[in-house]
């Protein structure tokens, strides 16, 4: 019926009309604007108000920023240049131009010998060669003047890349060390480098003899080996005890009441090795550490060192043993209940009281210890979340395989729980990293502390916006990309599990 109808009736259309263009208001930019900005009266009002707000903020900030003066030796010169150009307002970016290396690295010394012999060799020869300028008997005041002239001559960029090669290399290697943890596609052998990285970083940053970090690493391995061997021979618990005794003998004095000079073993080994083969870099005291580098060092070491402790605390908090659980809960709640700044003051004012008389850590180390304890409480909560998110079946499956507690944790539970926790760990790191700015209150030279030092010089006294903005931007860029990365990880891990 329909068939014949279609063939016989001529007034039915047999070709489609070309699609008509949509009405002008329903296409392109206009439609987009209407739908996204002016979909209703209230929305339109909001849009107009926000456009006005953006305009008024930008019109206040942009001229100041863009007309900024980059080339001046002091705030006074900046003001003179500003008046000369007839500007009403202008940022004095010259302070950043002159001091950005200081904000990044604090007073960490540059490798001046390398700089001089690579980029300043003619003048170095004129001054009498490497030995005459940098040798042990040289005139220190003349050396300082030589270095100042050299740095002014070769420029900040060269100083950045070559003078600070030690912290830069430590940072680059950090990326290499973290990569296999975050990307499971990378070869697993790289994990060994991740384990070795802390020792490499300490050697690069603090310098001194290479045998210090090496013998600490070897000592740790030795203690673990001792524990394993004994465990294989006579049971896990005795093995653990043997391992602890080995650690005590190597790193501490196990017999505090009978000091026979043999323990701890480590300094002796280091001393012998160093005497036999003195290899090392120039030792740099922690007081010279500063700037953005300091924030990265404190943040990174805080997170890395607190991971094991945090895992133990998280497991302890879930323990069926009431005393263990109680200890862990108390520790976590006390640490989390008190602000970091109070802990930092404790590190700076009180930690020396708690340690045996005569011991003296430098402030940076005390701060790292305190930050580690602080971060471990927060990490414990993150890991606890990961443990809780794991289906109960996983625990039961491990039990049904006959694994004991530690094996079950090591082989089944923790690998999965930690994987879920990675975004949380990264977020904790971002928080900790931002909180490192608080060390300014105990006198460490973090970026904000350096702004104080810079403002105390006669040239830059009275400047602050430029410094705050620069430091704030540094932190923002770093944290923003970290948090984006953590979100990406979160998404990736979620799809894995569905």
């Amino acid at each position: 019926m329909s068939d014949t109808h279609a063939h016989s009736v001529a007034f039915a259309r047999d070709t489609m009309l070309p699609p008509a263009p949509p009405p002008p208001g329903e296409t392109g930019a206009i439609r987009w604007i209407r739908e996204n900005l002016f979909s209703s009266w209230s929305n339109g009002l909001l849009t107009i108000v926000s456009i006005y707000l953006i305009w008024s903020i930008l019109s206040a900030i942009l001229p100041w920023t863009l007309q900024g003066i980059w080339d001046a030796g002091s705030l006074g010169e900046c003001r003179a240049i500003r008046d000369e150009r007839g500007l009403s307002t202008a940022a004095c970016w010259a302070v950043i131009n002159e001091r950005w290396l200081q904000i990044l690295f604090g007073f960490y010394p540059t490798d001046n010998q390398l700089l001089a012999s690579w980029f300043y060799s003619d003048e170095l020869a004129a001054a009498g060669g490497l030995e005459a300028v940098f040798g042990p008997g040289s005139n220190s005041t003349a050396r300082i003047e030589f270095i100042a002239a050299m740095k002014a001559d070769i420029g900040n960029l060269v100083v950045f890349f070559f003078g600070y090669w030690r912290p830069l290399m430590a940072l680059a290697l950090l990326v290499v060390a973290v990569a296999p943890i975050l990307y499971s596609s990378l070869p697993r052998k790289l994990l060994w480098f991740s384990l070795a990285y802390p020792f490499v970083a300490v050697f690069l940053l603090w310098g001194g003899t290479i045998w210090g970090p090496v013998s600490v690493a070897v000592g740790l391995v030795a203690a673990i080996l001792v524990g394993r061997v004994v465990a294989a021979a006579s049971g896990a618990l005795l093995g653990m005890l043997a391992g602890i005794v080995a650690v005590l003998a190597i790193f501490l004095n196990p017999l505090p009441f009978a000091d026979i000079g043999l323990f701890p073993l480590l300094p002796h080994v280091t001393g012998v090795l160093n005497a036999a083969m003195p290899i090392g870099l120039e030792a740099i005291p922690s007081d010279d550490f500063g700037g953005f580098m300091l924030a990265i060092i404190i943040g990174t070491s805080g997170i890395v060192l607190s991971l094991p402790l945090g895992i133990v605390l998280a497991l302890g908090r879930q323990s069926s043993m009431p005393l263990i659980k109680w200890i862990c809960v108390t520790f976590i709640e006390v640490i989390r209940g008190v602000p970091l700044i109070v802990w930092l003051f404790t590190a700076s004012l009180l930690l020396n009281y708690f340690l045996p008389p005569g011991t003296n850590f430098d402030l940076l180390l005390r701060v790292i210890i305190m930050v580690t304890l602080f971060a471990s409480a927060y990490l414990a909560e993150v890991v606890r979340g990961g443990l809780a998110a794991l289906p109960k079946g996983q625990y039961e499956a491990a039990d049904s395989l006959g694994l004991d507690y530690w094996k079950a944790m090591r082989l089944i539970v923790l690998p999965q729980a930690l994987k879920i926790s990675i975004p949380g760990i990264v977020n904790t790191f971002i928080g900790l990293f931002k909180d490192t700015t608080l060390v300014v209150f105990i006198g460490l030279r973090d970026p904000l502390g350096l702004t104080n030092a810079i403002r105390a010089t006669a040239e830059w006294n009275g400047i602050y916006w430029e410094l705050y903005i620069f430091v704030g931007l540094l932190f923002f860029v770093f944290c923003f990309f970290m948090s984006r990365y953590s979100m990406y990880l979160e998404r990736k891990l979620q799809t894995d599990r569905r």
Partner: protein
Amino acid sequence: MKKSVFLGTLAVAGLAAGLASAQSTLEQVQARGSLLCGSNEGLAGFAAPDANGVWQGFDVSLCRAIATAVLGDPQAVEFVPLTSQTRFTALAAGEVDVLVRNSTWTYSRDTDLNLDFVGVNYYDGQGFMVRSDLGVSSATELDGATVCIQTGTTTELNLADFFRVNNITYEPVPVATNAEGQQQYLAGACDVYTTDVSGLAATRATFENASEHVILPEIVSKEPLGPVVRHGDNDWGDIVRWTLNALVAAEEYGVTSANVRELAAAPTANPEINRLLGTEGELGAMMGLANDWAVNVIAAVGNYGEVFEQNIGENTPVGLARGLNAQWTDGGLLYSPPFR
């Protein structure tokens, strides 16, 4: 009881190895090869880093002088930045060998905090700075004023005392650092900025229009600023005290960095100079130093007057007059005990 602690994974050889407490400060400094000097985080004219990270200033020079006396090298100093809150604890805990951080010598600090002030390198006093267009000519007219003040210092105690004694009211605006105080004052968030007069002068020197601000004539406190050492290590205290005295004495006797080598080459007519410069007697050995220690010190940093002129004198941006800090022969308070 001597214990050694070695935190394995953290510690680096030389970073935190157990230090025996039996060593005297002098021995520690010599073993370390550098002086740990507790310094300000930044105060114009007294301690501030230049673009290369080299510290300059009046207090810094004293540290360099001590380093020269003990180690022979003015650059062998590690400057440990200390806040006004952490400075005395850090010194007591042995984190620094000497504290030169414009700290006021007071009774309780000397006795109760177990510190020793070994001298005065700058006689200061607390003053007030106001805008000249306020028309205030005396601090007693400041009834009801808002006063910016750095916390954690003796200044806030003095301030409270001054206003209470004069029976006038004020509103304190505490600030954390000198830079912060300056910013608040310039923006008009406080009418008055109070700190040591040297600090006021240094601050005023950096203003765009310095002439619009006046420092009021009242000095409401005595602020003798000086180097501090730990109580109990008197040998070390002696070294710091006499290094300072050597700088003062050198100015009194006209020994400068320019002529000190020449004067030390052979005994001069003045036996005081000879003893100071070690060409007569064995004064250096009495402190466990080389006999020509004072020569090195003066050659490296100059005498007191030179240090003053170079860092905070009238030709510098800070622009301080000698005032109380002139030699006693010029009507000031600087008076070095005799070298004999």
